[in-house]
């Protein structure tokens, strides 16, 4: 059976490998345009082309394509509005960018042989950007009051340092869980898909003998079902990332009221 982890290898595209290059500050790096770059660039272009298509001929009464774009826009707009509240409009561009970009990369992964979001480096970047934004917004908006986030006024006084310490560590774990959730979901789903597709191939080439007649329909049905599930997961993980970004932003934007 083929190695199900083969799909996650980052390889330079033919003709676009520039070899070792010495840069002034960074040092020696291996410069190449890889399949990971290609998947991310396609994802970016897909988002830009889609939003251009739906807004190029904008009317007061939306047509079919415009309605699709407005639904997507309205969903994230409603999300920021309902979770962050009045200030949500300010953070909408960031949440919408992250959501559409992750969604485009997840969906492209279902069509290409490579999923950009199944690379830990890509999802870690998203997690760290979100975490960094939350910390910066918290410090700029609240100053030293930012530390109130780790001082739970609802708990009894003796318990507060302990609960605060736990809150602090759970705060530090946020980028890790954001990263690993997206990465694990995409990688796990694609491994499962390839494993079952491998069973189909094993049965078809006759490596399993007459037993293959039994394996083939089961594995093929499972592959089709998992493909449908993966489309759901691709959308759901982008949505969950957006929702959690909103929740984490809400913690620092509306610090002090409603905790």
């Amino acid at each position: 059976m083929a190695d199900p982890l083969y799909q996650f290898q980052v390889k330079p595209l033919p003709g676009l490998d520039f070899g070792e290059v010495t840069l002034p500050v960074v040092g020696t790096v291996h410069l190449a345009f890889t399949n990971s770059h290609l998947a991310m660039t396609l994802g970016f272009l897909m988002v830009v082309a889609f939003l251009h298509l739906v807004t190029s001929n904008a009317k007061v009464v939306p047509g079919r394509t415009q309605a699709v774009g407005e639904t997507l826009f309205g969903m994230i707009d409603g999300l920021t509005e309902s979770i962050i509240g009045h200030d949500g409009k300010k953070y909408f561009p960031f949440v919408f960018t992250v959501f559409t970009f992750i969604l485009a990369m997840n969906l492209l992964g279902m069509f290409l042989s490579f999923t950009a979001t199944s690379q830990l480096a890509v999802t870690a970047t998203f997690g760290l950007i979100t975490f960094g934004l939350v910390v910066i917004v918290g410090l700029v908006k609240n100053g030293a009051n930012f530390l109130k986030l780790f001082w739970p006024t609802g708990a009894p006084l003796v318990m507060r340092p302990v609960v605060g310490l736990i809150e602090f560590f759970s705060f530090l774990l946020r980028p890790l869980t954001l990263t690993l959730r997206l990465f694990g979901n995409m990688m796990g789903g694609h491994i499962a898909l390839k494993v079952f597709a491998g069973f189909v191939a094993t049965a078809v080439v006759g490596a399993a003998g007459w037993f293959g007649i039994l394996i083939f329909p089961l594995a093929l049905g499972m592959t089709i079902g998992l493909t449908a599930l993966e489309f759901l997961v691709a959308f759901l993980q982008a949505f969950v990332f957006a929702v959690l970004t909103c929740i984490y932003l809400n913690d620092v934007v509306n610090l002090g009221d409603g905790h």
Partner: protein
Amino acid sequence: MDPQAAKLIGAGIAMCGMIGAGIGVGNIFGQFLAGALRNPSAAGSQIGNLFVGAALAEALGILAFVMGILIWIS
């Protein structure tokens, strides 16, 4: 024991963490369905909470899964 075999058994045992995630996610969706059947008019507004809860419960299973994969390929 052969270190290679021990590594593979360890990777398999690490996957046991997924059991908890399965129970958690099943519990969330089951409870949601039970609540939604009692009060269908309020169900639509809670879909967002449902998926966030499912994702949070699932993340802990995913941690175990990533750990298992790391043990397997390292």
